[in-house]
């Protein structure tokens, strides 16, 4: 099973993906598809992208041997340190790629959606760096919850537009960005923040963040002389996860694990686990798994992690789930926060709460595979942004007398 084959037919991954968008956007998506493919096979573009990642974004990120965490989990754990990238997450890879492509297409304006503000900040950063106008749509609810990121975006010169419709969160910010795009498509690129949306976004974003696995694979060979036994990543829309899996997909001996946000537990209905707790449908331009009611209305997601709090998932993950190549499981808020604390205490690394879901998952994998196993865990981002959320959580969940 090659990804290329899965992509071949008009951006479908098996029955997933495609383009479920207004006709008005099709021409722009076609243009993007053509321009992206041209750019990706152009040494000039690739060279400039690599240079930006290296000189500006601090990539390749280290593959770090987490010795004390390994001792605690009972397997050899290597962390792919995306938290050390400029702006503190894997997202910089995607935004630099798309912003560079925007320049190449000659469009002066970029729009983006953001939930927690991470992708908004990354987009504002890339636009400042490459001299592009930047407008970020953000749910009204989120602009209040993530005020610090709103001011970061403004410092970077972006305009932040609060979205007051629907649930006033990420999915509505995406809707509003799509509406802007329909209206201004001649001058504007929609810099989508994850490996979701209509074709070619899922493939393009995957390729831009795919460096995570290309690097990790080589680093693993260099360091250990072999490939890891497993790769773990958290799954929101799915960009860091697809980036972490991509180069390993053909390596049948490497098991791949994606961890969705289980919130209060999938059984409670308060979660963001689209694959484990959702059903197949269409949202934001692609056929994929999503949280929906009996009538196909989108159901709001819940997670302590703002970056995973999205009611759908990129279509390639839906496909990798169905084919069985990747195992997707939910991780609850409580499990994630336990893992969050564990990483803080054992390694002196404060992870993004999103990434803590992957650490929690690795704990399960370590139990299953035992002490000789090598597990690569993508630490998709750093946790500076999560100080308040974590403090609040731990105040309500004291360390003594509780079981994960």
């Amino acid at each position: 099973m090659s990804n290329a084959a899965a992509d071949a037919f008009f951006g479908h991954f098996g029955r997933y993906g495609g383009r479920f968008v207004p006709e008005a956007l099709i021409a722009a998506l076609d243009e993007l598809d053509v321009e992206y493919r041209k750019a990706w096979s152009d040494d000039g573009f690739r060279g400039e992208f690599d240079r930006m990642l290296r000189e500006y974004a601090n990539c390749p990120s280290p593959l770090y041997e987490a010795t004390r965490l390994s001792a605690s989990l009972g397997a050899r754990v290597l962390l792919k340190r995306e938290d050390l990238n400029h702006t503190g997450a894997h997202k910089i890879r995607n935004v630099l790629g798309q912003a560079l492509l925007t320049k190449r297409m000659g469009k002066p304006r970029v729009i983006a959606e953001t939930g927690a503000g991470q992708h908004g900040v990354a987009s504002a950063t890339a636009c400042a760096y490459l001299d592009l106008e930047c407008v970020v749509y953000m749910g009204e609810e989120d602009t209040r919850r993530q005020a610090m990121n709103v001011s970061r975006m403004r410092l970077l010169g972006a305009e932040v537009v609060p979205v007051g419709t629907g649930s006033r969160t990420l999915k509505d910010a995406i809707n509003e960005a799509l509406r802007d795009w329909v209206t201004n498509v001649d001058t504007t690129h929609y810099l989508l923040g994850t490996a979701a949306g209509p074709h070619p976004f899922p493939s393009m974003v995957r390729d831009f963040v795919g460096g995570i696995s290309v690097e990790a694979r080589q680093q693993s060979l260099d360091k250990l002389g072999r490939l890891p036994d497993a790769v773990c990543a958290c799954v929101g829309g799915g960009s860091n996860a697809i980036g972490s899996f991509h180069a390993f997909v053909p390596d049948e001996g490497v098991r791949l694990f994606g961890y969705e946000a289980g919130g209060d537990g999938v059984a409670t209905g308060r979660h963001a686990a689209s694959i484990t707790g959702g059903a197949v449908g269409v949202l934001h331009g692609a056929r994929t798994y999503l949280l929906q009611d009996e009538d196909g209305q989108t159901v709001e997601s819940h997670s302590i992690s703002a970056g995973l709090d999205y009611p759908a998932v990129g279509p390639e993950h839906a496909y990798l789930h169905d084919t069985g190549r990747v195992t997707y499981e939910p991780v609850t808020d409580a499990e994630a926060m336990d893992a969050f604390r564990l990483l803080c205490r054992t390694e002196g690394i404060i992870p993004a709460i999103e990434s803590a879901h992957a650490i929690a998952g690795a704990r399960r994998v370590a139990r299953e595979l035992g002490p000789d196993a090598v597990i690569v865990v993508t630490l998709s981002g750093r946790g500076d942004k999560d100080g308040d959320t974590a403090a609040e959580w731990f105040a309500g969940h004291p360390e003594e007398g509780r079981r994960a």
Partner: protein
Amino acid sequence: MNVTDAFERARAEGRRVLVGYLPAGFPSYDGCVAALAAMVKAGVDVVEVGLPYSDPVMDGPIIQRAAERSLAQGTRTTDVLRTVEAVAEMGVPALCMTYWNPVSRYGVDRFAADLAGAGGAGLITPDLIPDEADDWLAASDRHRLDRVFLVAPSSADARLACTVAACRGFVYAASLMGVTGTREKTSEQGRALVARVREVTALPVGVGLGVSNGAQAAEVGGYADAVIVGSAFVRTLLDAETPDAGVDAAADLAADLASGVRSPG
């Protein structure tokens, strides 16, 4: 009654077809049916019953607000089908305008069967392109339903021809690049788009996006076979002090638009 009959009758009368839209369940189930009845009485020839959806990316703030309110009141897909049935009983063709996920969730063939059973004429699908529509193409054939896909000013010639070839009933020309909503001026892009559609089909062409009064309807009627009005109707109901006043205002607007489509220029 199907859409083709409505177009033929209008042609025989030397006028254009007026298509009016409301989301089902807005301002209430009964209120929507009452408003649609008044609109039909005042001259709306074809009704588009909107299926209110949580993520309407093709809609501007007016229709978003109405859909949100309808959903908050508990409108279900089956209520939309009941609304279609009520409209069909008024003796005009009723199309359902819907984003794709609710149909996908209901089951494409089951939805088509139930829509046909309710006397519905077909579907208008703002986020479904023919490339992704195999199951709907089959179901609409099986249940003899019209399928109205959209074309846009940005559609390349080859795409436009393919999309139009997949349409049945009429072709929906989105006259400008943007979302639904009333506009001060109708778009010049509409005229050019309709001309391009006419080069590849004999199907009637309806123009929507932005029309809000009789004068605009007359102008659009100068080059299109149908004038499609949504947000302006919704706004009359949103702005009304009472449900009855809303129904009256919607009827007044329908009458104004109906006179517009009778003096195309």
